[in-house]
């Protein structure tokens, strides 16, 4: 907590907290919020980046069941389980008597934006302290019950024991005392030691496991309210396009179709606004889809109607050949290149990508006398409150957002345009509306991963050692979504695998070019780390080949000795995912360590049969270090198989060890999808792909049957887990392909490149 207190935003939170509740200190029970059956433990202040007010996480039901509130969205990273583990462990609750309650969207919880692989980073410490404060209150309650000092009471596994007499109470016996009790001051809260943890740092199964395998889990489209109608929307095929005219006669003639409603035309910048278009409301999903198919719409494609992603690729590539703005520079790049005996140039390209979560966006909305209720598969319910209220002319507090399980998200569902659509249609129609995106809607109207061209140049001396390294990156920025005309990526985007280059070269220069956005650019799992890591880690293997060195040894050599990177030669401080370099240093020793681990488990250096090869890549992203080794076999006809993958991850302290392994395995397969087939292309401003047949993601027959993961045991501060496993996969794969075939892949997707 003391570290969090140093963050300036936190002071604002604390001040507001004190004003609101009228108490000093960090912890307070806000008694006016208590009901007889619920004791609520509260904590003031939140993560380093937000926010206001009081957070409420722990409650008891009359039978002593602990209700732990999860304020983050679960999209498969099992955060509902992890938050339960943290609080239940510190408060010594019996896991069998814990129930997880999903929070509504509410700023009182602090940051709820489940994005950026930061749920544990933001919450481990404060929720441990929150749980520990409840444990201490339980000891005091036990002491009061027996008339003995709290110091003689021990709290363990849902019981309070009086050490001298052996008397015991269940948590349920002291609920009434808890609700009237003062909360310990921060300084008085004693955390358990790591050795005392019973749930944290174990691989406990998801709290939702039974429902996930028996079909009863509630995802976005599974919400069932009385008399709900289903809406499907025909959106402009081109971003910022609009309806010129439409004829709904045929649509309205379809049995089950009830209403046709136009959605307002958005204005730039788009942010999270709905794209506009025509909604068909029907008594069931099938009728709504048929009704939409029957709409006759003439579109005005607007300013992006000439966007052609093939021509745009050439534009980006040309830009990357020209000097850009220097982001970081050390030594003298030109002198370094001039002194080199070997010069290497390579250009890399990664296309737009779509999130394509298994459940496309869905939200249900119902108007009430005081506002609107929304049930949404959202990563960020407070954003739903903000966007829906703006769309409907309400205040955010009038928007009650219930978060369902997310059927995958990968960044897509932190942009709640679908909730605004549902709420607008509920308001306009008077119906309870379930707004369903079809898969075609999802693929064609996404917030796409950016498209990028990069040029890398290296100069090596006569020993093959790196003398000079130049990297240029050009890609349209996410910033264009929020500010029209943005053509320069932000420092945060550039910090993802570009400006934080760990390459130890005497002469180094990193440059960025400008690019205009013609689609909605959004963050997709790992974001800019995807393309930057692909280029850098591939290029290092290219350098190794030119130097006739082992790629793993060469990778370790260019990273250099174990040290904390200072990012000298940068115009502005390195953003470091919002953390200081003191708390979360970029430690090249930890990067090298995961490389050694992954390489050792893969048996790096062993002889493989012809057509087979190993490739390695390593990367730090979201403050976590991951190395990946991929083994491939490429047949004479160019058929690729991946027998096995080895990964090592150092994410600092981890809460659920099995989740980390599962996320690594899944992150590798996500990286495989990025590499193999996937790519969004556009012609005349419209997306050419529409469903899983032409936007192909990895299937079981393509996926490695075995992905071995080593999780580094660490007591360092917790770092990200959801995103870091993805970036190194594609370059490790392409490096393996090179080892197997001598063919260097510089453009994704791989597609048919191995067959030519």
């Amino acid at each position, binding site marked *: 907590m003391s570290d969090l207190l140093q963050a300036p935003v936190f002071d604002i939170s604390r001040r507001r907290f004190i004003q609101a509740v009228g108490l000093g200190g960090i912890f307070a029970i806000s008694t006016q919020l208590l009901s007889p059956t619920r004791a609520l433990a509260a904590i003031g202040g939140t993560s380093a980046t937000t926010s206001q007010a009081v957070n409420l996480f722990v409650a008891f039901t009359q039978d002593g069941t602990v209700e732990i509130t999860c304020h983050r969205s679960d999209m498969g990273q099992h955060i509902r389980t992890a938050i339960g583990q943290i609080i239940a462990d510190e408060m010594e609750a019996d896991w069998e008597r814990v129930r997880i309650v999903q929070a509504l969207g509410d700023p009182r919880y602090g940051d709820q934006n489940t994005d950026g692989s930061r749920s544990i980073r933001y919450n481990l410490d404060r929720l441990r302290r929150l749980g520990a404060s409840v444990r201490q209150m339980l000891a005091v309650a036990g002491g009061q019950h027996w008339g003995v000092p709290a110091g003689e009471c021990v709290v363990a596994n849902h019981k309070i024991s009086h050490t001298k007499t052996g008397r015991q109470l269940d948590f349920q016996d002291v609920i009434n005392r808890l609700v009237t009790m003062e909360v310990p001051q921060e300084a008085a809260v004693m955390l358990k030691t790591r050795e005392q943890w019973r749930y944290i740092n174990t691989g406990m199964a998801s709290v939702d496991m039974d429902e996930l395998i028996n079909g009863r889990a509630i995802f976005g489209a599974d919400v069932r309210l009385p008399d709900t109608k289903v809406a499907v929307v025909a959106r402009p095929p081109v971003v910022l396009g609009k309806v010129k005219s439409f004829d709904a006669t045929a649509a309205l003639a379809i049995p089950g179709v009830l209403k046709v409603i136009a959605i307002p035309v958005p204005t730039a910048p788009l942010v999270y606004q709905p794209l506009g278009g025509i909604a068909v409301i029907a008594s069931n999903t099938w009728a709504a889809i048929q009704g939409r198919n029957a709409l006759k719409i003439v579109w005005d494609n607007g300013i992006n109607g000439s966007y052609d992603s093939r021509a745009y690729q050439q534009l980006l590539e040309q830009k990357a050949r020209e000097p850009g703005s220097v982001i970081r520079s050390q030594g003298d790049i030109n002198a370094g290149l001039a002194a080199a005996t070997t010069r290497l140039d390579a250009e890399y390209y990664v296309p737009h990508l779509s999130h394509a979560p298994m459940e*496309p966006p869905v939200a249900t909305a119902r108007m009430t006398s005081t506002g609107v209720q929304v049930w949404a598969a959202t990563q960020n319910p407070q954003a739903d409150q903000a966007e829906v209220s703006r769309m409907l002319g309400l205040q955010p507090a009038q928007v009650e957002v219930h978060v369902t399980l997310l059927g995958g998200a990968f960044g897509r569902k932190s942009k709640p345009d679908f909730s605004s659509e549902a709420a607008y249609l509920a308001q306009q129609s008077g119906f309870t509306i379930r707004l369903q995106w079809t898969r075609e809607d999802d693929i064609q109207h996404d917030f796409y991963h950016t498209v990028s061209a990069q040029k890398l140049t290296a100069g090596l001396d006569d020993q093959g050692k790196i003398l000079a390294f130049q990297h240029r990156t050009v890609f349209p920025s996410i910033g264009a979504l929020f500010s029209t005309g943005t053509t320069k990526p932000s420092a945060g985007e550039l910090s993802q695998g570009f400006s934080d280059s760990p390459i130890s070269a005497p002469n180094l220069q990193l440059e960025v070019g400008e690019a205009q956005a013609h689609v909605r650019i959004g963050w997709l799992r790992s974001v800019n780390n995807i393309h930057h890591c692909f280029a850098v880690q591939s290029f290092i293997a290219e350098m190794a080949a030119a130097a006739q060195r082992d790629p793993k040894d060469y990778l370790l050599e260019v990273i250099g000795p174990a040290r904390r990177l200072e990012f000298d030669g940068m115009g502005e401080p390195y953003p470091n995912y919002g953390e200081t370099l003191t708390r979360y240093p970029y430690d090249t020793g930890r990067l090298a360590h995961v490389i050694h681990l992954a390489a050792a488990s893969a048996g790096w250096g062993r002889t493989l049969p012809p057509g087979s090869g190993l490739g390695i890549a390593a990367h730090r992203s979201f403050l976590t270090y991951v190395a990946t080794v991929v083994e491939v076999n490429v047949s004479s006809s160019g058929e690729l198989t991946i027998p096995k993958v080895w990964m090592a991850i150092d994410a600092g302290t981890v809460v659920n060890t099995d989740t980390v392994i599962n996320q690594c395995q*899944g992150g590798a397969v996500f990286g495989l999808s990025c590499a193999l087939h996937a790519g969004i292309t556009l012609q005349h401003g419209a997306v050419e792909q529409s469903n899983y047949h032409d936007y192909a993601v990895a299937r079981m027959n393509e996926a490695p049957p075995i992905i071995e993961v080593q999780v580094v045991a660490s007591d360092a501060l917790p770092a990200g887990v959801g995103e870091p496993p993805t970036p190194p996969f594609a370059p490790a794969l392409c490096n393996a392909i090179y080892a197997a075939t001598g063919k260097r892949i510089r453009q994704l997707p791989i597609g048919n490149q191995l067959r030519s």
Partner: protein
Amino acid sequence: MKLTINGKPIEYTGDPQMPLLWVLRDELNLTGTKYGCGIAQCGACTVHVNGMAQRACALPVAAAENQLVVTIEGLSVDGDHPLQTAWKDIQVPQCGFCQPGQIMQAAALLATNAGPTDAEIDTAMSGNICRCGTYPRIRAAIKSVAGASS
């Protein structure tokens, strides 16, 4: 028309061309069968029709008339089909959205081939997408059940 869903007789009077998926989800509130693509590309809607795995999103309900349809809700009484137990033991799911379809597909495979090879598992399961990438665990779960019964 007469349908039999999870052993229960159902009288359905709506559009005979409506895919079975939407009848299950919108008319019968059996929401364990998922919409993922609508064109039989992802397998999230997999159900059993007379014991065979079928994509409910591409099957007009008329084709299920007088057939025995089983959904994930009817695969076992208490969620204790051997595959469900294996899924639990191996902690397969991440987001879980595709898993009912995966389990239904795997159950149909094992019903006709109790000891599938890796290649046979690939062939049977490659129509079911898991965007979270739980394939290695799905494979391990299927093999654990196949191994136990062989």
